[in-house]
């Protein structure tokens, strides 16, 4: 295929990507949108395979086969609860790929490359490498590997990070005058260390923000690679992804009332001067499945507020059954979804959709809060920080100002979790000893199934 035709194919591919993202604006068209994106990718790949400069196909074929196998295996076997981990891992692969492409292209160059090419190459290498190690750390933290937990940030972490960044700047100015592959790999090495250093000091609770940011980076790495090889589709697709990741990052920061720098460089762990759990939990009343069933049977409006615990317990199918049961009894059931409930944006929606719960019952935080006073029973399943009234009432709280679902304002609030242990933010929750709150200590799935049995029998 002649270069003009290849570039035209890239243009068509870009149009498919754009239409794909447009499709994602509504649940009904989202499957089609994703297919659009996949078709765009296929077009770009086939056009590239037909390019005159691709002469040996052995490596490519083997690589594609291995990659497809691994990718398909993960995609079809992964549990929905594990999505955050998977996205983190794949992100890293994307960054690594860009890093290798830029390195390979640099190796192949013989003439004196222009300075814009050198800078693009260095950028692709740096962003790609940071994405790789950063994503691996995020993956490890989300998967709660023990050895990751043991790795602690160094005492002067910020200074070390700054030093690494300065070192990178120096190396880039060196490679500008000595464009040799050796320098490229040194830059990559430093960037790999930097990626690790930057993420290792960020608390597990902030990993979703990190993942979204790294998502953005993997796009930017691809765009930089586009500048290296002078390819428009890499620039366009990379920019779209870059924008996407950045917006998700913003969404999360807003939902946690924190700034991005605060997430990336801020302190972590609970505020030392906060009230201790013993001070807070003075009035905790626990309840049973039978009692909950009785309350539900006289209720007219029930709101279920899920959190990360529902994902851990894989309780979504039991929740669906409970919903059906209550609906049959004429009780109005809706779901209150906090934007950062769970471990990635939209995490709860995916789980509930998996259990065939219609998405129009999944209401956003503001909608639920607007008439939560009318709700008879609010069923909190494995949510903690996202329903912590301290965020609203206690300006000293580390999560002060974070918008929450005001479950404490419902007529009765039932909280299902295994213990009084804290959520990801690591702080006690005064909701648990509120007058209108009852605790049901149990695993999320088991608890919901017990309630179902009690409702049926009662």
């Amino acid at each position: 295929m002649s270069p003009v035709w290849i570039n035209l194919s890239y243009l068509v591919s870009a149009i498919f990507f754009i239409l794909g993202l447009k499709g994602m604006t509504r649940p009904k068209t989202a499957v089609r949108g994703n297919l659009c994106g996949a078709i765009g990718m296929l077009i770009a790949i086939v056009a590239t395979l037909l390019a005159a400069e691709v002469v040996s196909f052995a490596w490519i074929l083997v690589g594609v086969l291995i990659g497809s196998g691994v990718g398909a295996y993960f995609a079809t076997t992964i549990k929905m609860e594990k999505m955050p981990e998977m996205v983190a891992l794949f992100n890293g692969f994307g960054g690594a790929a860009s890093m290798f492409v830029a390195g390979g292209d640099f190796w192949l160059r013989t003439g004196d490359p222009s300075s814009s090419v050198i800078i693009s190459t260095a950028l692709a290498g740096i962003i790609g490498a940071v994405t790789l190690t950063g994503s691996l750390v995020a993956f490890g933290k989300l998967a709660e590997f023990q050895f990751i937990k043991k790795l602690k940030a160094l005492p002067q972490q910020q200074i070390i990070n700054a030093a690494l960044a300065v070192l990178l700047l120096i190396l880039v100015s060196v490679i500008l005058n000595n464009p040799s592959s050796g320098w490229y790999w040194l830059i990559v090495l430093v960037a790999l260390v930097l990626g690790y250093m930057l993420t290792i000091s960020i608390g597990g609770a902030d990993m979703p923000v990190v993942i979204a940011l790294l998502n953005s980076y993997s796009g930017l790495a691809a765009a930089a690679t586009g500048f290296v090889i002078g390819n428009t589709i890499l620039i366009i697709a990379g920019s779209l992804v870059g924008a996407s990741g950045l917006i998700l990052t913003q969404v999360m920061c807003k939902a946690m009332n924190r700034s991005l720098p605060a997430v990336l460089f801020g302190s972590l762990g609970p505020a030392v001067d906060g009230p201790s759990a013993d001070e807070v939990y003075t009035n905790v009343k626990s309840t049973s499945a039978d009692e909950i069933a009785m309350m539900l049977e006289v209720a007219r409006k029930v709101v279920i507020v899920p959190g990360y615990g529902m994902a851990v317990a894989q309780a979504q199918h039991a929740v669906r059954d409970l919903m059906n049961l209550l609906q049959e009894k004429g009780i109005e059931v809706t779901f209150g979804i906090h934007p950062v409930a769970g471990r990635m944006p939209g995490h709860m929606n995916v789980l509930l959709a998996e259990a065939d719960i219609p998405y129009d019952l999944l209401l956003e935080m503001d909608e639920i809060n607007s008439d939560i006073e009318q709700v008879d029973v609010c069923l909190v399943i494995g949510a903690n920080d996202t329903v912590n009234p301290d965020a609203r009432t206690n300006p000293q709280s580390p999560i002060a100002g974070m918008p929450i679902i005001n479950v404490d304002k419902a007529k009765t609030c039932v909280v299902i979790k295994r213990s009084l242990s804290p959520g990801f933010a690591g702080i006690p929750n005064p909701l648990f000893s509120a007058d209108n709150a009852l605790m049901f200590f149990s695993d999320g799935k088991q608890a919901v199934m017990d309630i179902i049995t009690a409702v049926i029998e009662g």
Partner: protein
Amino acid sequence: MNTLLAFDEKTAETTEKVVEVVSQVVPLPLVIGLTILILAVFLGFELITKIPPTLHTPLMSGSNAISGITLVGAILVAGTEHGGFAAFLGFLAVVMATVNVVGGFLVTHRMLQKFKR
């Protein structure tokens, strides 16, 4: 000289000769690349702010898959006639980018099917 008008007696000839050599492909000028980048970023912002929170997880995995576009670059490097170390790097890149692309689109599809009704 009238280069911005894409017209000039002297350069016209020279340009034509080059066009023959590089078979109509001229390396993408930096400013043009930047122009495309900026347009795509703005477009991305407009498109993605319209996507509802319900779909944010599939959006994340889907855009992840799109970032696998670097596979295009990987193929060009892995398929070079010069082979050797560069081709090996290209191979690594092909593997990783393919995992990203195939895994990303597939898992997004799996998730989105639940949202259909």
